[in-house]
């Protein structure tokens, strides 16, 4: 080796050393490169694993999103289709396939021809296939135009989704161009056709280089049906509205006829009332004045029968007028202080004789009705109407009771409400017919007809009680015998007048303390005679005139305490005469004037009251009423 080395020249030795160093550098670089490669391989392997994991994650994520999207389509009730305008191939979502009845046809291809067979067009009803074909053609052309112009998507210059209809830049279509509604054949045999709405959007996908048509498909059969139903309902409502309007017109006409008829009836009743009252005044008045002394028993009975018949006739007339007033809403209430005990005693006592004549007992009792306080003494009430109720109930009890008796119980049921009951031992009322008897002309008993009742009494009572804010009813009497009519009424308590005034009232049954001078202006002779007779009974001096003009002159020249002025008189009627009297200078103008009238309505009385009359006496004149009217105006 040493010998060989000694043989190598120095230059060669240097060259060898250089080559060895280069080799060493190359080997070192190779080792480093291999080490780097190893590191890079590991990094690459890890990256590959990560890539696989990411891909799997993306696959799962994509699957979930796809399922969610398909589920959303199913829930929302629409399907989607993407159509490649160049390749004539489309993909349909499962719900799109279901809606169109193309199950299992996820991919669809082929050029559509309106005359040839195409799975999509075959589902469309024949008469609408051309429409669908034209729609498809229009969309395809649009998409291809987009691709040709290189406009990606359908965004405007600021990269917002373009909403401009018929935009020339991005070919965004007008709604009318991108929407189509068409019918497809029913999804199963026998099923009616379905209505489909397709909404389309064309675009050019720059990444894929494809001209695409994106279509949503929706079954709007129910929507259309609902709209049709709504339309039918609307038309029906409009028809009904027209019918109702027509009915309203007819009803208005009928009401006007009824109102005219009612007004005619009212006028007729008013006239009838007046015309009947005038002769009745003569009959009843004369009967009252008739002195029955010296008559035989049979004559006396005949006179009583005539008086009783006259009273019945008067009451019947009053009932008819009351009912008419109630029906027309003219029934009104007065409000005056009333002593309950005295009032009830007098009212009930009035019927004592009738009861006694039939061998019946009639008692008035105080009752508590579960409210443990005595009934107040003075209340505000309409005496006349309250009396009307009591008279009706008690007279009925007397009328329909053959044996036993009648008990009237009265007492409070609450702090401001009292009740009275009229209990009889009569024939009673079957429970099922108790409601009827408060109806107009609701007679139950033939005996009622025989007794001359109008069947109006209880109906009028109910209306009066209603007006007073109370209630009225009937039930079986104690032990199921007879009837118990009851009335409950609200009341307002007041302080009564002084004892002195009461005493004075009681004393003035006749106007004895200085005779009153009364002027009667009345054109009917009978009425004049009745008035004179009754006023004579009351202890008055009477002057008679036959018309208003004479009345004015009499008042001007004489001194009267009160004037009874008939309303309807020849020459000068009552209202005008009253006005003239009121216009006379001096104290005579203050002479109290009482209207004397056969009219009973408030409207008919108005001219007299307006002219200055301060009281009313209705014909046929009743002595008691005449007395009260005069007493109330002569202090």
């Amino acid at each position, binding site marked *: 080796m040493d010998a060989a080395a000694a043989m190598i020249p120095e230059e060669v030795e240097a060259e060898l050393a*250089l080559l060895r160093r280069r080799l060493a*550098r190359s080997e*070192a670089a190779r080792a*480093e*490169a291999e080490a*780097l490669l190893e590191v890079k391989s590991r990094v690459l392997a890890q990256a590959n694993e990560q890539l696989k994991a990411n891909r799997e994650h993306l696959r799962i994520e994509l699957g979930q999103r796809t399922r969610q999207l398909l589920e959303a389509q199913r829930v929302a009730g629409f399907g989607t289709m993407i159509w490649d305008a160049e390749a004539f191939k489309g993909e349909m979502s499962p719900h799109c396939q279901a809606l169109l009845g193309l199950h299992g046809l996820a991919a669809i291809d082929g050029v559509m021809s309106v005359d040839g067979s195409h799975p999509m067009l075959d589902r469309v009803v024949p008469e609408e296939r051309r429409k669908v074909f034209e729609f498809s053609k229009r969309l395809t052309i649009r998409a291809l135009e987009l691709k040709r112009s290189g406009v990606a998507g359908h965004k405007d210059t600021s990269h917002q989704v373009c909403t401009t209809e018929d935009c020339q830049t991005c070919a965004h279509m007008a709604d009318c161009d991108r929407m189509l509604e068409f019918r497809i054949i029913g999804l199963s045999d026998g099923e009616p056709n379905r209505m489909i709405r397709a909404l389309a959007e064309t675009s050019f996908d720059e990444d894929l280089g494809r001209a695409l048509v994106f279509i949503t498909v929706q079954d709007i059969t129910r929507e259309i049906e609902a709209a049709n139903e709504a339309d039918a309902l609307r038309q029906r409502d409009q028809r009904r509205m027209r019918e109702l309007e027509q009915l309203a017109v007819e009803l208005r006409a009928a009401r006007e006829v009824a109102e005219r008829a009612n007004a005619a009836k009212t006028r007729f009743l008013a006239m009838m009332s007046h015309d009947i009252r005038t002769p009745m005044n003569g009959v009843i008045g004369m009967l009252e004045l008739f002195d029955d002394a010296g008559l035989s028993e049979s004559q006396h009975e005949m006179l009583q029968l005539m008086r009783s018949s006259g009273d019945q006739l008067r009451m019947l007339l009053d009932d008819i007028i009351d009912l008419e007033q109630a029906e027309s809403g003219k029934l009104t209430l007065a409000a005056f202080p009333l002593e309950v005990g005295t009032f009830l005693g007098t009212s009930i006592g009035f019927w004592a004789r009738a009861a006694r004549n039939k061998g019946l007992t009639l008692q008035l009792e105080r009752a508590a009705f579960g409210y443990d306080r005595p009934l107040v003494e003075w209340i505000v009430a309409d005496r006349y109407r309250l009396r009307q109720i009591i008279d009706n109930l008690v007279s009925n009890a007397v009328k329909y009771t053959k044996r036993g008796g009648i008990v009237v119980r009265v007492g409070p049921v609450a702090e401001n409400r009292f009740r009275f009951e009229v209990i009889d031992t009569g024939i009673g009322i079957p429970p099922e017919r108790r409601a009827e008897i408060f109806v107009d002309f609701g007679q139950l008993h033939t005996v009622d007809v025989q007794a001359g009742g109008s069947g109006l009494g209880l109906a009028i009572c109910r209306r009066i009680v209603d007006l007073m804010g109370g209630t009225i009813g009937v039930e079986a009497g104690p032990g199921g015998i007879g009837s118990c009519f009851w009335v409950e009424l609200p009341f307002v308590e007041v302080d009564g007048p002084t004892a002195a005034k009461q005493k004075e009232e009681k004393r003035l049954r006749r106007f004895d303390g200085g005779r009153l001078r009364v002027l009667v202006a009345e054109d009917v002779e009978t009425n004049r005679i009745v008035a004179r007779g009754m006023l004579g009974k009351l202890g008055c001096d009477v002057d008679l005139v036959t018309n208003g003009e004479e009345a004015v002159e009499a008042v001007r020249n004489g001194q009267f305490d009160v004037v009874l002025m008939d309303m309807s008189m020849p020459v000068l009627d009552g209202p005008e005469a009253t006005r003239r009297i009121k216009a006379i200078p001096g104290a005579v103008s203050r002479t109290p004037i009482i209207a004397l009238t056969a009219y009973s309505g408030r409207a008919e009385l108005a001219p007299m009251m307006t002219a200055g009359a301060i009281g009313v006496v209705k014909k046929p004149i009743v002595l008691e009423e005449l007395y009260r009217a005069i007493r109330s105006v002569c202090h």
Partner: protein
Amino acid sequence: MKGLVFSEMLGWAEHAYSPALVDRMIVQSGVPNDGAYTSVGNYPHGEALALFGALSELTGEPIGDLARAYGYWLAGRFVTLYPELVGVYPDAESLLAGVGPHIHEEVTRLYPEAQPPQVHSSPIEGGMQLDYVSHRPFAPLAHGLIEGFVAHFGNHHTIAREDLDAGGKAARFTISQISN
């Protein structure tokens, strides 16, 4: 700095001078790995400067001239080694315009740790401008590369360099078409 620059530099120096001079250059530069560079590795750019410094001392040539000559040679090597990158460009201007957005982008994608210089091109009347900015002082090397690519496409351009930084870290190159 990519190991390719180092391994190709040794190859260029052996080709331009001699293996013996390269051996001396390595020894004289004092680089830590005794010049064992692999193209797939990464090395501090200071080692390249040390090598260029040693070569300058051994040859008496300025460092800038050496780096420019190396750049010219390296452009030829790129054409040989990476035809898929260089071959897509039809002319020098389009290649130089693609250095920043395409070639360096590709390098960064393949070698995430690489830090290529920023190269920005802009067209001008009759040519283009290329701005070079780097944290390394290799504007002369870039100059040589541009010359090499221009030569590859037939030398239809002149190249003017304006140093924007005395240390060679920034420069503007004006590449003008030679009118016939």
